[in-house]
């Protein structure tokens, strides 16, 4: 037995999106996505929560140095998404609907190569009432 320790960290970014797919008719888009399909999009203040695991280094007491984790997340996620349109500015969402489910998967894919610890899961809060989690396949 023994204990597994994970480090959790929260970040924030604001972005706009529009839920709409060319694979459906305008009527179907409106029926499925409702207001989220409005043509000019809308935005959210997203809260991203990530958990990483690994051995706690006895010299530092840390799974990963926060400065390393923060700069990695800043470069891979925050700079790419913050104050951007997910549909227009993020290549992954040119063809994929930027729901928060898909956003979780995209963020997981971007962060899983963090070299100093193992990415366990990402959780994205779209509003205080909606949150989504992805822990890889």
């Amino acid at each position, binding site marked *: *037995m023994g204990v*597994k320790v994970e480090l959790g960290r929260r970040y924030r970014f604001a972005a706009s999106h529009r839920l709409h797919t060319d694979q459906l008719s305008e009527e179907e888009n409106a029926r499925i996505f409702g207001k989220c399909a409005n043509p000019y999009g809308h935005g959210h203040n997203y809260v991203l929560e990530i958990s990483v695991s690994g051995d706690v280094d006895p010299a*530092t007491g*840390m799974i990963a140095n*926060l400065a390393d984790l923060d700069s990695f997340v800043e470069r891979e996620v925050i700079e790419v998404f913050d104050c951007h349109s997910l549909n227009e500015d993020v290549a992954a969402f040119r063809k994929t609907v930027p729901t928060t489910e898909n956003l979780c998967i995209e963020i997981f894919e971007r962060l899983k190569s963090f070299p100093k610890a193992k990415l*366990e899961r990402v959780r994205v809060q779209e509003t205080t009432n909606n949150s989504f989690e992805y822990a890889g396949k």
Partner: protein
Amino acid sequence: MVLITRKIEFSASHLYHNPALSPEENRRVFGKCNNPHGHGHNYTLEVTVAGEPDPVTGMVLDLKELKEILEREVMQRMDHRFLNYEVTELKGQIPTCENIARVIWELLEPKITQGQLHRVRLYESADLFADCYRNGAR
């Protein structure tokens, strides 16, 4: 199985310093957290116990009992203390969120006899926390 979570808050000071490293290395690795006189946080601790509700009482465990365990094991040890100097279990360790959470897990795990300790989550701030689980449980 049902999970039950109790939350407590405590305030404590700490600093990050490894005597095996040079002053410059300590500064580089730990940054402001290496300031010699320390600094403090309001810690929030969430303790989650897993179990089946007792058919008579409807409880996984008596919350009053959990409250007393948390008071004795955590509050009396850590609240309004300097973690580096006053908490025996942290002697020789850097009192990071990871290490404090693990020490709390190890203190609580044998004391919880109704149900089973499932998770210890310790927030150092709203944006930084550590989780502990039983190895293999997650």
